């Protein structure tokens, strides 16, 4: 059978077998939670608690600043001991609220469930924003912004992203298996907000159990489950749209330019929790895996739990970690230490020992064209990277550097081990710096 897909991409070993069959476990609450105020794209939230305050689970501890921003909530009840810069997944020290849990895990009063039928789209958007819902695939773009398309851009289709094309990760897979009803409730909310009838759920064909589960629940809801070819980066927004609908998002444009909204399945569950249960986004599913950890697991993690606590719950380290990655191995962020807390975007935690890494010195480009063949954005990575290295940013821009989605396929496949993505990123940074200057 031939599955739908996009052009380009590649097939890294998926290594999902270590955690795919393991049910989601609740990770215990750590002795100290470090909740960063910057967990989303956009302006960081503004702290509205101070040291010594007692907070309850779900209480707002950081207010949103501006439209593209969301509030931050306490993940459990306890005492705020400080609001100070702490290590952040970005590698910098950023402002965070440090909470010592009191062990009662008591919800804030006045959290009321609601029914989808009783709320207007605006009320639902408000509940989503107040709950701090962001894109759970890892990009952490505020969900209410995506669900507020301008009037001149009519939306006709909603796509749910259950692809999970990153190797190792199984968080979305388990979520679809264990909380299918919540996924569909989230879909119902988004359908009402956007006023669309057409809904697709895209899932890679290597998750037949998830596809079967989604099909079972879709019933007569009109939601179409689409099995997609197993290929990285099938779950990248633009590539997913191309595969399912055949539409192409224009250069520099957004999915809403072609009448589409794409949301992760994890976001659908968070939206369900926010709108129907009135519960803010204070926990997420995170796959802790890799050869550096004893027992890979899928964990339900409170936002702000230090990574070392997750590792302890998975049987500890199986050797000195040489590389710690938050997210997937292709597009995730390397971390400096296990002191960093898990945030709303932490879909995975991968640990590798020195012996697991394959490091090669960079060689000259042999013009083999493999990077061109795998580029899902159909760019010429080697050309853009060469211009970026020479700081000829006009040429880099004219070759479409800004359309690079930084998926890492070119670097992965390069036989000369040229850090193509890093070069292109430095070119993009130079282009953006020049645009800001005007």
């Amino acid at each position, binding site marked *: 059978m031939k599955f739908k897909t996009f052009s380009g991409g590649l097939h890294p070993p998926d290594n999902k077998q270590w955690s795919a069959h393991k049910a989601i476990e609740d990770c215990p609450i750590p002795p100290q939670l470090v909740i960063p105020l910057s967990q989303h794209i956009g302006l960081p939230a503004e702290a509205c608690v101070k040291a010594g305050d007692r907070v309850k689970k779900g209480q707002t501890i950081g207010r949103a600043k501006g439209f593209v921003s969301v509030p931050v909530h306490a993940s459990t009840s306890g005492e705020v001991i400080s609001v100070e810069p702490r290590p952040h997944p*970005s*590698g*910098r020290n950023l402002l965070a609220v440090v909470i010592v849990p009191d062990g009662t895990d008591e919800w804030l009063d006045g959290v009321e469930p609601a029914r989808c039928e009783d709320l207007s789209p605006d009320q639902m958007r408000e509940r989503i924003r107040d709950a701090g819902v962001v894109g759970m695939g890892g990009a952490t773009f505020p969900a209410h912004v995506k669900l507020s398309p301008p009037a001149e851009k009519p939306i006709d289709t909603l796509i749910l992203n259950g692809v999970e094309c990153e190797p190792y990760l199984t968080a979305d897979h388990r979520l679809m298996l264990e909380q299918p009803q919540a996924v569909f409730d989230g879909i119902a909310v988004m359908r009402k907000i956007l006023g669309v009838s057409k809904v697709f759920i895209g899932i890679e064909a290597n998750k037949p159990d998830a596809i079967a589960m989604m099909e079972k629940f879709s019933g007569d809801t009109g939601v179409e489950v689409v099995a997609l070819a197993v290929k990285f980066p099938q779950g990248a927004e633009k590539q997913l749209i191309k595969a399912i609908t055949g539409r192409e998002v224009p250069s520099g444009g957004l999915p809403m330019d072609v009448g589409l909204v794409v949301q992760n399945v994890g976001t659908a569950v968070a939206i369900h929790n926010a709108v129907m249960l009135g519960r803010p986004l204070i926990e997420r599913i995170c796959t802790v895996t890799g050869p550096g950890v004893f027992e890979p697991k899928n964990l339900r993690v409170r936002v702000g739990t230090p990574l070392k606590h997750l590792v302890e719950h998975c049987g500890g380290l199986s050797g000195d970690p040489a590389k710690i990655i938050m997210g997937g191995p292709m597009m995730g962020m*390397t971390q400096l230490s296990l002191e960093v807390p898990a945030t709303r975007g932490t879909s995975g935690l991968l640990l590798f020992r020195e012996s697991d890494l394959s490091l090669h010195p*960079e060689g000259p480009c042999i013009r083999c064209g493999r990077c061109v063949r795998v580029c899902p954005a159909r760019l010429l990575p080697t050309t853009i990277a060469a211009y970026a290295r020479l700081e000829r940013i006009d040429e880099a821009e004219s070759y479409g550097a800004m359309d690079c989605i930084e998926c890492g396929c070119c670097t992965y496949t390069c036989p000369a081990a040229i850090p193509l993505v890093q*070069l292109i*990123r430095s070119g993009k940074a130079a282009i953006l710096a020049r645009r800001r200057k005007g």
Partner: protein
Amino acid sequence: MIEAVVSIGGIGMLAAVALGFASKKFAVEVDPRELAVLEVLSGANCGACGYPGCSAYARAVASGEASASLCTPGGTETIEKVAHIMGVEAEMTAPQVAVVFCQGDNRKAKNKYRYLGIADCASAQRLADGPKTCPGGCLGLGTCMRICPFGAIEMTPEGLAVINREKCTGCRKCVQACPRSVIRMEPLDATIHVLCNSHDKGAAVRKYCSVGCVACHICQKTVPEAYRIDNSLAVVNHEYNEEALAAVAKCPTKCICDFAEGYPEGSTFHPPTKAPFRRSA
């Protein structure tokens, strides 16, 4: 035969007359001063003056748009000549050199992670603010060395940029290129510098660097007029360059360097011998 000579000769004559007319009619007037200025400029096309190359600067000077004293690589001699051509007073500024305010190479300063990416300081800096634990230290990937038009910067094997004060013309290209502002311009005759760029408290500096300024105040106590502590970092008052020498040997972390005696450890540059590196007295 004769027809050929006449017709070709006639065409030649006609063309000569047309060209002669055109050269008078459409002549582009070039300020003779522009050519004279271009003649005396250093010709390095380094861009230190802020113009794209020497000819653009010569044009700007001749049109009165630019000051006559912007060619720092040419030194006082060039500036005087340009000022003479333009008939203005030369605005003399003390000659300056670039100084790397760091001695923390890979043996002396700690890294918070192993950087394996492209050898460019700006790229490394984008990755969690650079591999060096010290927020101000030299990253040692040689971006300044590659951009220097005069070959005045070398990287030591341990990863530290060192500037040759004799070759440095003060064009500031390295200052602009350094993502951590470790390189700054200083007067050429100021030879004593506190080579540290970290404003962290002493205890923090001690943890990640063996040659950083820990703000112990010993230099200030030794020569109060020559040193002050600004935000946990000692700063030399260059008016008292001579007096400041007394504190060099007393610095417990050896982060005060006297360029008249030598360059930081690991450099192949030899101590400068000729004036003005030697102090006057």
